[in-house]
């Protein structure tokens, strides 16, 4: 069936979309950057980080879950929305223990890159400094819960792609945290493996391959030369992606 050309407008720019696409899908296809952390084109949108909150016909909506409807007037890159995004990023920074200088993901980290994009100069809010553990039990991977931002990409990847259901979120409110579904709670007691989708989707430094770190020199890391607005997600997959499940 030939789809008729339908359009939405983002910050005054008219862009086409196909039925079933969310605002995020349409924006990415048109190379318009809407900041996001929990969104990943290969997975069902989650809408939890709220970075992609945009104004749709005067209402606040998350672009990753909001279906495109012809004629929508959308505001994205505005001072107010970006300030909101900065506050949300700061909240994520104070909620966990994000020590960029010592983190192997630095320079390749989506949270850090978004923080640069939204002009975050300090975490501003009082740090929670939660006590969180590190799970180094697996021979090839280490899970550092300090750096988890609860985007649930690993949860979704392990459940929907790997069919292993290794990760889950437990606890409510500020006590919500990532857990590993095994009797011991340790990654070594799961069938997590190097080739798993869940091993590659973490946008921050919470799930990392052991030993081989800092291999990319400063200056050549993903976000060293260009902003995340141009570079895109740390998984480098979303260029031209349309809807989850297909590219």
């Amino acid at each position, binding site marked *: 069936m030939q789809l008729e050309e339908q359009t939405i407008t983002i910050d005054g720019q008219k862009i086409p979309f196909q039925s079933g696409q969310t605002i995020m899908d349409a924006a990415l296809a048109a190379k318009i950057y809407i900041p996001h952390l929990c969104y990943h084109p290969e997975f069902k949108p989650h809408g939890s980080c*709220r970075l992609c909150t945009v104004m749709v016909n005067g209402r606040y909506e998350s672009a990753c879950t909001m279906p495109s409807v012809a004629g929508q007037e959308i505001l994205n890159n505005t001072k107010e929305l970006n300030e909101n995004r900065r506050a949300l990023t700061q909240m994520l920074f104070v909620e966990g223990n994000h020590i960029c200088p010592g983190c192997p993901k630095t320079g390749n980290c989506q949270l850090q890159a978004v923080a640069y994009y939204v002009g975050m100069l300090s975490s501003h809010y009082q740090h929670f400094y939660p006590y969180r553990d590190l799970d180094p039990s697996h021979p090839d991977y280490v899970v550092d819960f300090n750096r988890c931002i609860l985007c649930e990409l690993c949860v979704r990847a392990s459940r929907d792609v790997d069919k292993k259901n290794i990760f889950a979120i437990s606890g409510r409110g500020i006590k*919500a945290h990532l857990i590993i579904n095994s009797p011991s709670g340790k990654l070594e007691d799961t069938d997590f493996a190097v080739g798993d989708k869940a091993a590659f989707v973490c946008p921050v430094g919470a799930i990392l391959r052991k030993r081989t770190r800092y291999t990319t020199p400063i200056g050549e890391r993903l976000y060293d030369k260009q902003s995340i607005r141009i570079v895109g997600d740390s998984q480098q997959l979303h260029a031209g992606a349309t809807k989850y499940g297909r590219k």
Partner: protein
Amino acid sequence: MIESLEGKRGVPRNRPPFPVTQGYLNKPTVVNNVETFALAARIAVYGGDGFAALGTKQSKGTKLLSISGDCLRPGIYEFPFGVSVREVLEACNAQDTQAVQISGAAGTCLSAKEFDRKIAFEDVATGGSVMIFNRQRDLLEVVRNFAHFFVHESCGFCTPCRVGTSLLKNLVEKVYTNHGTADDLKDMSYISQVLKTASHCGLGQTASNHIADTLKKFPEIYHKRLLVEANFEPAFDLDSALEDARQITGRKDEMAYL
């Protein structure tokens, strides 16, 4: 609720799709409270005309109000829509009222100046809860209570509500314990707005109302507790930090007070 019925973690769903089209087990589902069902039954049995004759043009019929707090006759009342707050207060015999919290912790806090406002969709909408606070109450205690309530109620799904409610609680505590500054009030106000605009569900969107409302309508409950009113350099209090050391060393000389 639907997620829980399906045996999943109790977090709010993305809408759209709404439950009316895809609810429980992705089937169309009606989600309403008991009052709605009761009124629907009454209309079904007695017809809609009598019901529609009550209330205002935009808010027809009656509303059950659950009245609690500083009044002589708390309880469940049924009023036609359009009743003023003052009439409600008189009906339950509330004296010397400082503030009325309509529609629960997530609702609206009204000051005495607003008691002529009407309970109706077009003015003060409510789920039915009315909490009355007289002038003997310390409203900041109420705010604290609500702030803690929302920390507990937040499911933790989305960033603004998960983190923001705790940030707000900490700031309220900071002000309550006389450590707050004008900058903290600015932060509270801004975080409140972020919750309202960015939260995933209605709980988060309204979880900061009590703070935003009281900051606007009862600023004195915050200001009277600030460490200093203006020009405060955020830092720790050196003098009080030194007090422990002075106690231990028994020093009282001039140089022990920096």
